[in-house]
Structures are given as C-alpha cells and as structure tokens.
C-alpha cells in the first residue's frame, strides 16, 4: 500500500523535486566558484558569494517545504478525499504514509545537495585556514527542510479555507503589531518567539549555511 501511495505522490511531486534538486546543485557549485588564484587584494568575493548562497538555501528550504506539503494534500482536497476514503486503511496510517512519502522526497533533495557539495569541494583547493563542510551543510539544510515541511504539512492538512484563515490571522497580527505595538500584541509575539526558539527552530533556521567556512 505504501509503495502505491509513494508512486502516486511521486507523480504529483516529481517536477518540484527535480527542480529543487537542480537548484541546490547550482547554488552549491556557484557558491564556491570563485577564482581564488586571481583574486585582487581582498576582492576574492568568496565570503559574499557564500553569504548570498546562504540566503538562497533559506529560500529553497521554505519553498521546498511548501511545495512538498502542497503536493501531498492538494489532490486530496481537489478530489474531496474520495481517494483517501476508498483505501482500505485507517486514516492515521494514510496520513503517516503521506507524511513519510514527502519526507523521502525531501531526503532525495538533501542527498543531491550532499553529493553536489562533495563534488564541488573536491574540485577546488580549500584555502588553508578554512574548512569544507559538505556533510554539515547537507545535514543542517535537511533538518531545516524537515521543519518547514512539517509546518506546511500541518497547514495543508486542514481545508484550504482553514489554511487561509490561519495565514490571514498570522499576517494580520504581525502587520498590526508592527504598526502599533500593544502590550497584548507584544506578549503574544514574545510567546511565539519563545515557542520558536524553545523548540529549537531558531538554531535550525538562523544557522550559517556555508559550504566553506572557518
């Protein structure tokens, strides 16, 4: 049963997975393709390139989490869950299969990134004093992708209307509180921040995702 669901979900997700895999390969190679031999004074630009790639990785992690979760649920929503009801398995197992399938696709993207990072760093001579972190980078991005996937999976598992309500309320809260801070708003914002950092997401999402670093 899991194999069949995986196969179906792969058909929905494959183009996103392939595009994201291609994107991480390009970013990984681009981030260190600097001519270190012909750098001008301090103008090698490696630090700036790595910093820019760091931003791209963050973007890809959020987009990737969103797309993988969307593909897991969108067709079910469109088909009014008839497919889910037609399967001879309880709902909790159905949800678990959907979730794990998405995780496997996320793992595929991370594996691609790891291989690309290994190949890219093996093709250049890492400057003395610095180190290459292909595995560390893949691991960190993998955990971050897992986090964003889990968050978006929860949102997409609800009806689209509920998802719009949740997103709308959050956006409204952030906008209103930034324009006119209130004690209640500040307390709520502090609570969200505490939850965010308390669960360790701060470490996951604000890390330094550099392929070559100190």
């Amino acid at each position, binding site marked *: 049963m899991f194999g069949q669901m995986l196969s179906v979900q792969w058909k929905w997700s494959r183009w996103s997975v392939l595009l994201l895999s291609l994107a991480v390969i390009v970013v990984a190679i681009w981030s260190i393709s*600097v001519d*270190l031999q012909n*750098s*001008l*004074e*301090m*103008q*090698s630009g*490696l*630090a700036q390139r*790595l*910093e820019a790639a760091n931003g791209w990785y963050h973007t890809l992690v959020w987009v990737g989490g969103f797309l993988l979760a969307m593909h897991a649920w969108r067709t079910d929503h469109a088909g*009014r*869950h008839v497919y*889910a*009801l037609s399967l001879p398995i309880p*709902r*909790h197992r159905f*949800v*678990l299969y959907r*979730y794990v399938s998405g995780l496997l696709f996320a793992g595929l993207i991370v594996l691609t990134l790891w291989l690309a990072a290994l190949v890219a760093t093996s093709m250049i001579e890492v*400057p*003395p*004093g*610095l180190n290459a*972190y292909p595995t*560390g980078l893949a*691991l*960190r991005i993998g*955990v971050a992708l*897992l*986090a964003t996937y*889990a*968050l978006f*999976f*929860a949102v997409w*598992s*609800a*009806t689209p209307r509920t998802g719009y309500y949740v997103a709308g309320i959050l956006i409204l809260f952030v906008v209103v509180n930034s324009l006119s*801070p209130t004690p209640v708003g500040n307390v709520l914002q*502090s609570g969200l921040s505490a939850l965010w950092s*308390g*669960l*360790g*997401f701060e*470490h*996951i999402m*604000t*890390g*330094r995702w550099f392929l*070559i*670093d*100190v």
Partner: protein
Amino acid sequence: MKRLCIGLGSLMLIAVDARVMAQSTESQRMRVETLEQSWRAMNRTRSRGVVPSPRATDTTRAGALVVLSEPELTPLVRYAAPQAWQLLLDSFGAGARVLETIDIVYVLQAGEGSQPGHDLILMQSYRTPDTQRGFGSGTISRERAELGRGIAHNVAGQIVGAVGLPSWMWGVAITEPRERRFLANAFIELATAKDSLTRSCAEGNSSGCQRFLELDQPEKMPLSDPPGGSSRLTQVFRHIRGPLLRVTLRTGGVDARRRLEGTADRNLGERLATAAGVPIDSLMTLWRSEVTRRPVSSVPTTRSVLGLALISLIVLGVSTRRPVRR
C-alpha cells in the same frame, strides 16, 4: 534645588551600597566625591541643551555596572542590567571589572516625549584616575529583549576607553551571534587575500598576524592601510582586530589595565602581551580561536531535533483527527 536633591539622593543610594561600603573610608570618600563631580558635569552639559534633564532616582547594580533610572523604568532596568553585565562578562571576562577602577555613572531615562517602544537615552559621565573627564550619551531601544544588549554595547566602549587605547575605540563589539558572523566572514576574506603575508596569518603564522594587525609598531591614530592593503582590507582589519583586545582583557583580568599603563613606549604587541600576561604567540593563538569560533554549532542541537520530533507528532496527530468531508 529639586535636581540637586535628586542628585544627592542618588549619590547616597550608591554610597550606602554594600560594595562601596566594603571600600576604605578614603576611597569611598573619593569615589562619592568623583561621582558627585560627574553628576554636576552632566548637569552642566544638560543645561547647555545637549541632553534632557536627568530625573533618575533609583539605583540598579549588576556586577560592576551601576545604572540610575527613573522609577517607571526601574523594573525594565532591573531586568536588563544583569543581562548587560552577563554579556560584558562573556565578552571581556574578568576584564569587565575594569569598570570598577573608573568612576562612572550611567543614567537611563526616557527621551522627551517618548512613547512606549521608542528609544531611551543612556547617559554616562566618568572620571578616570588621570583626571580626564568624559561624558557621552546615546539612544537605545526600549524593547525588553534589546535593552540589555544596548546597555552592554555602550558600556563596552567605556571599557575600551578605560584601558587607554584610543585607536580601538571603534571596532570592539560585544560577543554576540551577529558579530561572530561578521568575524567569520572577515576571516574568510583574510584566508583568501592575494597578499601572502595576510594569508599566512589565516594559516596560523603568528608573525604574519602580528604584522597584519600592526602589532610590531606603536599604537597610532588614525589607522593606516595595513601592509598590502586596500580600503576594503582596512575595513576587515578594523573589524577583525577587535577580538584581540577582548582576549587580552579576558586573559589579563582587571589587572590588565594596570599592566598596560606602564608600557606606553613599547610596541602594541608587547603592550597587549604584557597586559594579558602571556607570550605574544599565545595571544595570537587565543585571538585566532576567538575569531574562528563558529557562530552556531555545525550540527543541529539536541533541542532542535527533539523540537522537530515533537512538532512532527503534533502535525500527524492534528492531521489524523481532522474530520473527513463526506
């Protein structure tokens, strides 16, 4: 008259503090006298319209940090001052106690017409043992989470000023993730520089670092471009040498200042090594470790993984319980 009473009241609050009581009568008298003079100097400056009128009456003490504040700000200050002191200890170690050797008073108050969430004004007036008087003020955020950091940044400048190295006044920040990120980027610039001398420093060559950081010559103002340098290299240089003073104070402790004072005629490297009480090569190793300390662990923390596991379970639970539309 009212302001004089408030000023004297604040001074009395400081004077009866346990730490001051522990000093000798003579040093206590001198400290109170100096604080009083500082306060008057601040009032004179205020009368010229430079800063708003001080209305501080409450005293908050955290380590060697003393902050006077208006009563309505006192709960905020009592929350932020220990955080600020902890940040200073993290950055300068025992060297942060150099604040105890200068007579300095900080006054925190709301800016004129300020609204909740707007900036506060932090004023400081101090007098060093060589009778030089200093005064400064700056705005810091009222945000509860930011206030401690804002105070620490201001006080860090005072600590640098107290050790008498004017060319370091700009560029020594407190240790925090954002600063670590800048430092790590600066080190990457260092390691990929075209100039071999600069690069050798990143490779761990102590002599290269001493030349790059201009430690083989007396301190000079203003800073020039370092060897093989460009304006960009100068920016990196200014940023990356800040941790050197931090590790010097951290290693040398509160006596670092005293040791530094007797070496004014020697080159900068010798002065800092003497202040730290370690050989210059060891100081270079400590500096390099400080600069290259990674901002965040390269692997996810246990809490992150546990948080993820928890959120995944919640997600699955919520998704499973959702009623299916029929």
